[in-house]
């Protein structure tokens, strides 16, 4: 469980529109010692949270947020140099470039895989 210890003290932004999955992820990250920013279910709330937060170590983004796509959030994170990955039910082929280059975890996501992808 080296990956879990890698979470300690990390500030991780979670963007996920489904309450159950969001809470599940939040619980898991918190159990691993991370500090969770959010979770938030929409692009607007995510952008507001990013703008109002100084330190973000990483982010996990659901691509499809009800009727909108998360890409503006990804752009904002990249602009700040924050590593992020997509957690999605879509096939990798359905993710358009340049976002296609970012790590992608298929749902239901495995927290171990997420932690490894974000923090090595």
């Amino acid at each position, binding site marked *: 469980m080296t990956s879990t210890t890698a979470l300690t003290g990390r500030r991780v932004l979670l963007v996920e*529109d*489904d*309450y*159950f*999955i*969001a*809470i*599940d992820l939040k*619980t898991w990250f918190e159990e691993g010692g991370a500090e969770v920013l959010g*979770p938030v*279910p929409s692009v607007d709330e995510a952008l507001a949270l990013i703008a109002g937060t100084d330190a973000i170590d990483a982010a996990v983004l659901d691509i*499809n947020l*009800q*009727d909108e796509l998360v890409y503006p959030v990804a752009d904002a994170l990249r602009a700040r140099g924050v590593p992020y990955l997509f957690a*999605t*039910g*879509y*096939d990798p082929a*359905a993710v358009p470039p340049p976002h296609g280059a970012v790590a992608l975890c*298929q*749902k*239901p*996501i495995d927290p171990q895989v997420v932690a490894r992808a974000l923090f090595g």
Partner: protein
Amino acid sequence: MQDGRIVIPAGGTGPAADPVRPIPTPADCGTTPIAARPAPTHPEAPRSARRARGAATLPVGCGELGDLVRTYDWARTPLGPIADWPQSLIFAASTVLLSPVPIVLLWGADGIMIYNDAYSGFAGGRHPQLLGSKVREGWPEVADFNDHVMRVGLAGGTLSYRDQELTLHRYGRPEQVWMNLDYSPVFDEDGKPAGVIAIVVESTERVLAERRLRESEALFRTLAQGIPQLIWRAGNDGACIWVSPQWIAYTGQGDDRSLGWGWLDAVHPDDVATARTAWQEAAVSGQLSYEHRLCSAGKRSRWFQTRAAPVRDGEGRIVEWLGTSTDIDDLRQLQERQQVMVAELQHRTRNLLGVVRAIAKQTMALTGPGELFKQRFNDRLSALSRVQGLLSRSDQEPITLRTLIETELAALNAPAAQTRIRIAGPVVRLRKATVQTFALALHELATNALKYGAFTAPQGSLSVTWRICQSEEGRRLLMDWVEEGLVRPPEARDPPPRSGYGRDLIERALPYALKARTHYALSETALRCTIDIPLPEGETAGSLP
């Protein structure tokens, strides 16, 4: 010497007539005489033109008919024995017998028939009885026609017919035939018309072939214009030489604008390169097949599949292409929609697995492992399953708030309880994205009503009502879930069982996922839960169910 107006055959020089002498071809194909000139006037012919009878004889040879004519008993006919025939008749008969073209000589007022080998083939079953007979009796079925011929011919006139349609009985049955017929008079030693030379070339085969060709062309035109495809012909390089009316109707391009390379103007600008490449490759591969958009007159462009087969000459070189362009726009749209649907389904399925895992974990956190977990988890899975059923049918049957409420209440499987329920509100169609969370919340409310609320008390009742409000924040849906007449069992008072998972869902999940404002109030005798969620335009059907 001979009268200059009378053409005398080069008979008597032997049977070796030149077989390859050119045969004049008719210029016109009408069935009325194309040349009928009045009888020339003959001045009194010189006496010297009369020769002693029998001085000339039929040439040797002249085929089967030559032999037949020589041996025929002409004494029985008005012509008398050959030895007595005038020289003009001998010359005319020689001409006829030597000709490779079917010719019959009709001599005298009765038109006694002398014909050659070629004509005997045409005469069919009538030969050889036809020889020496009167034309009227030899061809009774066309007696009137031949009467006219004899009248004109013996008056010195000529007749010419192209593709004259006649019904003959050459083989004992009526037979429709077409003929090229040329009649010209033959003059006797006195310069008077004494007979008629009839060149009889049957054109039945050609006429029928042309008719078949016309029918086949008509069939092609019918097919080409009747099928939904746009049909065209192009040269071996892709330059168009013909387009079907469908092409003109769809593209709005006239013939003048579609021919040559004009058709490329109708191809969507983004697909012109594809079209050019396809034609370049077709020249090599001998196959043409590509998909492209085609601009329609005044409408949006549609996708077409263009295919063509090469038409080759005897040496296998491509002479032209016969092609079709088939509208595949609907098919492509369906395919695209299917791809989207498959992707959505995959997304929904994977998401659902995440939700199931989360619900299992969250349920277990409250119940611990054991019988209670099994019960609660199964209930929630059933609720999830019901909502998936609604979602899968939602394209045909939009999901309304009423449907969602009724589905969850029906799933309680408590018939007695159903009489104490009141449901009322306008038609509200829910967005697919909101349905699942909403359904899970309703499931928790319904389950609690069955286990701890309205349906446990003899006087308990449930009222679910909703309305649509316009506020400064936009349209909102206000739903009230009210249970009354509750009798709370003493053991339920501490701790209140309803502060568990269901309440958490209403107070946290709905605000999170649906931007809802919720209020949950439990008193001694009543439960009042208010759910207030944004309702963007398009989520109401307007009319009552």
